[in-house]
């Protein structure tokens, strides 16, 4: 496999608004042809970063290179990127075809070519034949497709998408997640998407940069983010997780033990980075915990008294495919456990106030240093 070239290089970029630091010394390389997602809670600086790539904001410090060219002082209309705005920003006084043709007209492309390229673009986003419609005759989903086509028709190096699916209803969003990923695969243009929705990020992205308070908390692929989060923020932000504070009491190359006052002793069958006796955090995903009636738990592959906990069910929510239980541990802390409903009667196994035992595999806990 040949090394892919970065199409966008963000180098030590900082952006300040007055005293507020929106983006704090961020460096990211976005590779040719990938679907890159900037994920984070609102106010984490992800939109500011996107707007700096588009040229609507200038970095206070640092450099942004697109296709190897420094973009300092290059205005938005000169940059080889196009953007799909959160509000779609479809021009209401132009027909669908005129909207899509706008960029080409401005850059002086010949009329016959404009027509074929507009038709192609509309076909690509499955709006073929709707070119003469006005935007107010379109649904929200269709308007978004117009915005997509309007960007794609310019054949940009990179297409930037600002919260592209946030205005759509849940069903349509799920469908568009899939379609966007497929579209990106078809056209081969690099997509950079900003979102606060982790499902959206996980389902579409090649790589995700999780941002927190202007900083990149972790940059990795979807499954790495979920299974190997780098810190508590990422573990907590992506999916659901139980986090317990503890001390590293055994720290050997092939095994480790973390003693958590609120959970018990957690055994891992692999070494961890972290000094002996230091404070660490153990994160366990709800679906990686097995729940059994009280007394029946017997942790396999773990020494006696490790990777086992006891408690009482204090709450449950039945979600159809899984049921999520809130279990009050003996320490008083609550822990979340999810259980797939593999047969149609599984949800009847446990109910409120049942005493239960919990166990997990030595590979399940994640040890976090920060």
């Amino acid at each position, binding site marked *: 496999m040949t090394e892919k070239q970065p199409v966008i290089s963000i180098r030590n970029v900082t952006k300040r608004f007055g005293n507020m630091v929106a983006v704090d010394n961020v460096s990211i390389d976005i590779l040719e042809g990938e679907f890159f997602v900037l994920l984070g809670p609102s106010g984490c600086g992800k939109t500011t970063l996107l707007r700096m790539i*588009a040229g609507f904001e200038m970095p206070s410090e640092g450099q942004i290179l697109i296709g190897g060219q420094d973009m300092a002082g290059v205005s*938005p*209309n000169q940059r080889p990127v*196009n953007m799909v*705005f959160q*509000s779609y920003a479809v021009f209401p006084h132009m027909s669908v075809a005129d909207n899509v043709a706008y960029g080409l007209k401005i*850059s002086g492309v010949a009329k016959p070519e404009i027509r074929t390229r507009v038709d192609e673009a509309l076909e690509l986003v499955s709006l073929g034949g709707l070119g003469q419609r006005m935007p107010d005759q379109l649904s929200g989903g269709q308007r978004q497709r117009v*915005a997509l086509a309007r*960007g794609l028709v*310019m054949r940009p190096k990179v297409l930037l998408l600002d919260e592209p699916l946030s205005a759509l209803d849940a069903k349509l969003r799920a469908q568009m997640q899939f379609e966007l990923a497929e579209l990106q695969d078809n056209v081969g243009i690099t997509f950079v998407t900003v979102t606060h929705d982790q499902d959206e990020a996980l389902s579409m992205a090649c790589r995700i940069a999780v941002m927190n308070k202007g900083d990149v908390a972790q940059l990795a692929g979807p499954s790495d983010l979920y299974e190997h989060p780098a810190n508590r923020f990422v573990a907590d932000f992506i999916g659901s997780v139980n986090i317990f504070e503890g001390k590293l009491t055994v720290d050997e190359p092939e095994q480790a033990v973390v003693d958590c006052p609120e959970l018990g002793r957690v055994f891992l069958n692999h070494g961890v980075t972290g000094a002996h006796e230091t404070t660490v955090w153990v994160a366990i995903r709800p679906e990686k915990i097995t729940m059994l009636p009280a007394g029946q738990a017997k942790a396999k592959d773990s020494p006696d008294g490790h990777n086992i906990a006891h408690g009482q069910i204090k709450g449950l929510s039945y979600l159809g495919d899984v049921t999520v239980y809130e279990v009050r541990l003996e320490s008083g802390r609550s822990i979340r456990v999810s259980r797939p409903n593999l047969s149609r009667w599984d949800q009847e196994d446990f109910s409120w106030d049942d005493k239960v035992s919990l166990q997990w595999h030595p590979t399940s806990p994640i040890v976090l240093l920060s």
Partner: protein
Amino acid sequence: MSLFKRTQIAPLEYTRRLWMRAWIAATLFFLYAPLLVLIAFSFNDSKRNIVWRGFTFKYYGKVLENDGLMAALGNSLTIAALATAFSIVLGTLAAVMLWRFRFPFKAGVEGTMALPIVVPEICMGVAMLVFFAKLDWPTDLPWPLNLSAITIAHITFCFPFVAMVVRARLAGFNKEQEEAAKDLGATEWQAFRDVLLPHMKPGIIAGALLAFTLSLDDFVITFFTSGPNTITFPVKVYSMVRFSVTPEVNAASAILIFLTILLTTVALKLQDFTKATA
């Protein structure tokens, strides 16, 4: 009873209540009765305006033959057209400036711009008179340059109306549209022309209508800035009324009313058209 009590009147069906209908009728009567009387008596075959003596069109003929009145109408329309054109440009630019930029004393600028709207017309009139006298503004220029003083005065009180209406329209503009245009390669000017201007258009048309009618029927300010050769339609009608209110005055006023209604309708139709294609 059965006529009114056919079905129970729902709480929000105000227009089915008798007292409400009476109120609406009274309002309409109060608003339009004087105008209807004026128009009706423009067809009265009598020198006096008091007793109905039969139907005639002759006063309309007289109006059209009255060279002084026709010249005044020509002056009024010219002034209104010029004042509207300048007001559109000035008002729109002022609105865009106030909407887009932040600058020191912005609130003060916004306030002083609205001043011509609230200052009593009589003060504006006197101020204009003193201003043009101090400047020694030439009054003996050939037509239409001799209308310049009145036109300038009209622009002064017309353009704030355009600015206000357009500013209100701009408040609802999605700035992402302008950014989208620039993102697609448009320059500042192209984005203004292709995105911002179409959005402002209904506001500009409404502002232009306001400006045109305000200018057309302004009396007080015009009275102070007009000379013997620059009589406008309202000023001329006023001088005719001083002798007696003949049906000729009625006919002249009726013509002005028809003209205004026609222009307003055309403008509104135009606006509908732009909305339909928007």
